[in-house]
Structures are given as structure tokens and as C-alpha cells.
């Protein structure tokens, strides 16, 4: 009798360790499923304090990674500072008239050639999978020639961040928000400022409750823009010029596809 019981508890143990429900407003239905940390927190003040302290450290780290590169900006100008910010966040950046992207290698190292391109505007930025948040945009807002911005799979891009993209309204043509867990339809509503937007990738947005309806509304709001990926049946979509396109191109897209 005791052995199966013990086995059951063993099975429950990894669940206790791992379960986290990051972005939901509903309270956890079963307190046991909240994780062992939660269990300990409810009983020991020390653990609660430690967990609170860890959360504070995480926010501090996020702030550090999104810091304003004012010193670089003063010496090298807006474009180089933005490129430096993007590269140190393991992103990619392309300057006007260049075919190649400035990338980081697997160790996070990059060449400092971009320091020579002081007066060349940045036209494309790929920050997919980075920790960019609202504060990090401080480094990018001065890029008046930015045409393509990839923010796919950024866990800290939220509606406040989207509301700040209006600074690119005269230039931005391509925007990807695929796989951002915090983006909702409330933030998408303020993309109406981006009048020159030609392509908007909105696939895999888990916080958007009714993707089909939102796709229609976004298309209505941005009539000249091609909206990709919100509707549930958008495995492969036909764009306006009849070309077949994959529904989730964001991560694997290469430089050649972006209009220079």
C-alpha cells in the first residue's frame, strides 16, 4: 500500500520543482502545483525574502542589459551606438548600402568594423530572442532611416514597447513581432502610427485571444500592409503578388529577403 503511494509522490516531485505560470492573471488552481519554492515561501520568511531578492536582481539585470549607451552616442553618434547596443544584445544589424549584416559569433564576439560607419544610417535591425524592453528602445529611437525591425521571440517586448514604435513612423516597412509572449491586441492597436509598414509578422502570439478577428482588424487599420500569421489557418499564406510564403519566416529569414 505504501509503495505505490511513495511512487506517486515521486512522480509529483518534478512537477513541484518546475511548474511556473508566467503570464496569466488567474490564480494557481492547486497550491501544490505552484512549485516547491512556493511551498517553502509560504512557510519560511527567509526563503520568501530570498526569492524576492532574486526577482529584484533579475529586474536589475534586465535594466543593465537595456541601459542607455549615452557615452558611445556622444563619441560615435546615434547609428553606431544603436549598432553597438544591438550587437551586445546578440542581435544583427545592417547599415545602408551594405549587403552583409554585422553579426555576433557563437561566443558573442563581433568585429568592431562598424565603428567606421559613423554617418551611415542603420536600415535593418534583428533583435530576435533578445531581452529588449521599453528602456532598451532609448538606443534606437533616433534611427530615422530604420526600415526593418525584427523583435520576434523577445520575452520582454510588451504593449508599452509597441506604443513607442511610433518614432519609426516615417521609415519602418517591415516589423516582426512573432512569438512575443507579452504582446496583446491592445498593443497592436497602436501600430496604426506606422504608415509605411508593408509587412507585419504576428504569428504565434499566445496572449492574443481571438487571432482571426484581430487579423481582420489589423488589416483594416493598416490597409497597405501585409499581415502574416495571426489567423489560425495561416500555415502557408499567399501574399498579394501571388508568391507562396511560409507562415513562420521570422527566425530563419536571411538578409537577402529584406529590401535594401
Amino acid at each position: 500500500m505504501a509503495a505505490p503511494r511513495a511512487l506517486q509522490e515521486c512522480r509529483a516531485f518534478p512537477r513541484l520543482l518546475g511548474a511556473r505560470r508566467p503570464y496569466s492573471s488567474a490564480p494557481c488552481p492547486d497550491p501544490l502545483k505552484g512549485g516547491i519554492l512556493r511551498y517553502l515561501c509560504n512557510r519560511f520568511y527567509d526563503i520568501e525574502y530570498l526569492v524576492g531578492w532574486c526577482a529584484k536582481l533579475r529586474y536589475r539585470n534586465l535594466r543593465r542589459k537595456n541601459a542607455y549607451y549615452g557615452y558611445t552616442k556622444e563619441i560615435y553618434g546615434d547609428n553606431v551606438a544603436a549598432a553597438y547596443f544591438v550587437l551586445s544584445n546578440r542581435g544583427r544589424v545592417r547599415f545602408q548600402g551594405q549587403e552583409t549584416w554585422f553579426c555576433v559569433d557563437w561566443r558573442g564576439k563581433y568585429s568592431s568594423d562598424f565603428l567606421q560607419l559613423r554617418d551611415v544610417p542603420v536600415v535593418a535591425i534583428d533583435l530576435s530572442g533578445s531581452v529588449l524592453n521599453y528602456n532598451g528602445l532609448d538606443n534606437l529611437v533616433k534611427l530615422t532611416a530604420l526600415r526593418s525591425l525584427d523583435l520576434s521571440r523577445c520575452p520582454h517586448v510588451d504593449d508599452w514597447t509597441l506604443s513607442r514604435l511610433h518614432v519609426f513612423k516615417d521609415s519602418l516597412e517591415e516589423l516582426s513581432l512573432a512569438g512575443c509572449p507579452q504582446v496583446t491586441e491592445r498593443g497592436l492597436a497602436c501600430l496604426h502610427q506606422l504608415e509605411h509598414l508593408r509587412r507585419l509578422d504576428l504569428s504565434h502570439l499566445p496572449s492574443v485571444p481571438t487571432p482571426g478577428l484581430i487579423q481582420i482588424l489589423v488589416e483594416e487599420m493598416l490597409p497597405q500592409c501585409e499581415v502574416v500569421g495571426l489567423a489560425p489557418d495561416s500555415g502557408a499564406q499567399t501574399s498579394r503578388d501571388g508568391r507562396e510564403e511560409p507562415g513562420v519566416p521570422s527566425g530563419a529569414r536571411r538578409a537577402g529577403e529584406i529590401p535594401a
Partner: protein
Amino acid sequence: MIRAGRLCRGLGRPRPLPLPAGGSAPRSRQLRTGLPQRRDLFRDLEKEVVKFQKKLKESLPGSDWDPLGTTKGLPPERADVVIVGGGVMGWSVAYWLKALEPRRDALRVVVIEKDPMYSQASTVLSAGGIRQQFSLPENIQMSLYSAFFLRTINEHLGVVNEPPIDIQFNPSGYLFLASENGAAVLEENVHIQRAEGAEVCLLSPAQLKKKYPWINTNDVAVASYGLENEGWFDPWSLLTAFRRKAMSMGVFQCFGEVTSFTISSREIMMPEGELTFSRINYVRVHMPNSLEYQPVECSLVVNAAGPWSQKLAEMAGVGIGPPDTQEGIKLPVEPRKRYIFVWHCPDGPGLDCPMLVDTTQAYFRREGTGGNYLGGLSPPEEEEPDIQDLEVDHNFFQEKIWPHLAHRVPVFKSLKVKSAWAGYYDYNTFDQNAVLGPHPLVENMLFITGFSGHGLQLSPAAGRAVAELILKGKFMTINMEKFSFNRFVSGEQVLERNII
């Protein structure tokens, strides 16, 4: 309790005599002639318990611990700060007091709210907008700080092991329209707003028409649109976030009504005459649905009662003196009823619909994505509705709001009202701005009230200002001396310049 009873019984009763040897002999007659003196435990139980309780209390001076327990929900007997009013302002002050206190548990804060259901609270019945388009620099700074606070709300109000807070912020911006007469004021306001760091742009009628084809721009001279940090959010989420965080930091919550204050006063000769200075010593809190009450000894009272703050101030003796003296100056905050209507219009403005404030002061915004809209209008001074209850006057929409809406947005000619509700504004009749800071005569009463409809959006900053005033003795982040009670004494108005 049982043990104590036994002890009493043991003392009260004479010890039985030891039985003589043999055991079989009959019990000997007692030597006394009177009736045996037996103390009935149950007759004296109540008295004994009270005596016992008193004794225990005396043995632990300065502590609230009660071994026998009392009614649940009573406020503590002593507190440093009593905040009257558990709306967003009250909880914001409570949170900031706890966040800024010099060491943990330095202050004992109690928040008293009379309505546990929040059924008439202004906080939860508001439309929930946030904007920077004010004309007073203080208000713009407060709003900017509040936007920053709401953006980083999880860093401030996140509780360990609770899900992250989502206040459902809609960053759609405010669009103010101005007619020929109001254009100059609007432009001037935008200059002030930009100087304070708000992102606001001006739009000509042609640009407006291009951006929002559904607007009729006939009598619009210029419009201003807030690009960042403006929009609307869910008031209830913000209130519960404040409350949850403050309670996790050790703030006491109590549902009850403050019925009176115990005040000590003294008269002091001042150059301008004899003035009566007073101090609140006890706050008397009545429990809901019962006769029970509890006096709370306190050193500071924060008046965050919103629409009812004038009544609360009168309990402390504000404004009940002769009419032309300092004691006779009332707190000029009144409840005013404002309606909010929700209507459905399937062909209405789309996802890009901002919070639009018309030249006639009628406003509306999108509510969700299903073609629902929400809006209202402040009635003119002489047509204020009765404030006895929160009944909605549906004719008000038909006669006053709808014509303006249909004129501005032609598709609203066909719409269907789905629901409506009313809420109270804490309307400052003097200059429609906040009252922040202490009263000049009642030394330990601080006001945080009179926001006249934009209290929700300024609550994080205003709460912080009052907490700074309590802990540091002055405003540290934003200087809000302008909003002190003294302006009612000097008669100097702090007015917002509204667009006509």
C-alpha cells in the same frame, strides 16, 4: 478558561474533611449552621472573564495580543497612520509609506474602508484613462511618473509567488479636438506638455481626416494627440495590486466606518488673531452591521475618502467654525454624479480609435474589440444630477451626448446603448484640482482628495507625495506645494486651462 474556572472553584469551596478510618461510617454533620457557601461558577463567569482579560492585558502593556481573541476584523487599538478611505488613493499612500519607510515595520498603517464590496467607490466606477495633456506642470509630472509606475508595475507591486500583474493598459492615446476659440489654448498647453517631457503632437484637420477618416472635422481647428504613455487601463487591477502589495508588506486592512474623532485642541494667539489648533487623538471605527466600535489611537490621519472627504473633515472640525474665520473654511470637495454609457456600433471606428475628447467635452473610447464604445460627458454646473443614489438618467445620453457624438463621428448616428453606470467624482468646487497635504489648523490630518475625476491616473504619484510628506516632512520627487489647503485660505485658485 476551564483551568481558571477550576482555580476559582478550588479557592471558593471549603476543603472536604478527611473521612474517618473505617469508611463505612456515615458522613458526619458539618459543624456550621448556615447554608454551605457554594459559589456558582456560571453566575460569575462573565465578570471573571473580564477580570481575567484585564489582568492579562496589564501584564503585557503596549501589545495588541489578546489570549482570548476578539471579533474578527476589528482594527488594531494603536496605529501610527490611519488612512480613511480604501480606494486607490488610500492604498497607494499605504503602499508608499511601507515602501519608503526607513526600516522594516517602522510604521503601523491601517486602511479603513466602509464598503467591502467597493460598490460605490469612485476608483472602480471610473473610465480608467491616463493622459499627460494637462496644463499645470505638476499634473503633467505626476501623470508622467504614474505612467512610469504603471509600466514597471511588476517591479513595484509584484508579490513573491503571485502571478505578474496585468493592468490591461491600452496605449491608444488621447485625442483632444479644439474649435476656433480653443486652438490657442490647446497649442499653449501642448508647449507646456512638451517642455515637461510628454510626447504630444499637433494635428491639422487635414492630417486628422487622413489619419482617422471616420471623424467629421468640420468645426475642428486643431487637434492634439498623445503619442506615448496615454490610454486607459483596468482600475480594479490597479486597486487590487496596490492592496495586495500593501497587505503583504504589513498594512492592516479594516472594513468599517469612521464615525467620529476624539480631538484635543488648544488656543494660540497669532498675529492675525486667536486660532484654535487641534489634534486628532482617536479615530472611532464602527464595524459594519453591528453596534461594535473600536477607538484607534493614532498620530496621523490621512483623509482619502474621495467624495465623502468633506464629511470626514467636518468630523475633525474643519469648516464648522464661524464663516469668515480660518476655522470656517470648508474643504470644498463634493460628490458629483457622472454617467458612463456603453454602446454598440458595428461599423464604428476600428482598432486605431483613441480616447477622443470632443470640442464639447464629450468623450468616448473603444472598449474591447467587439465594436463596443464607452463614453460620457460632464453636465453643466446648473444641471448637476441628484447625488443621493447611483441611478442612471438615460435621457441624458439621448439628449446631451448622442447629438455631439453623431455630429463628430457620423457612423454613431445608428448605435445601441448596451449598458450604463454612474460613479461619484470627488469634485473640487474651488478649482477642480487636488488637495494635497496637511490642514493648517488640524495638525495631524493630511488630505489627498479633490482630484475631480483624474485621481486614478495620478494615484501612484500622489500617494508617493503624501508618503514623502509624512516620512520626510517635505515633497521629494515632485513639488506639490501648490495643491496645499492654504490656497483656500488665501483664495488663490490653481486652475487647469481647459480647451473649449
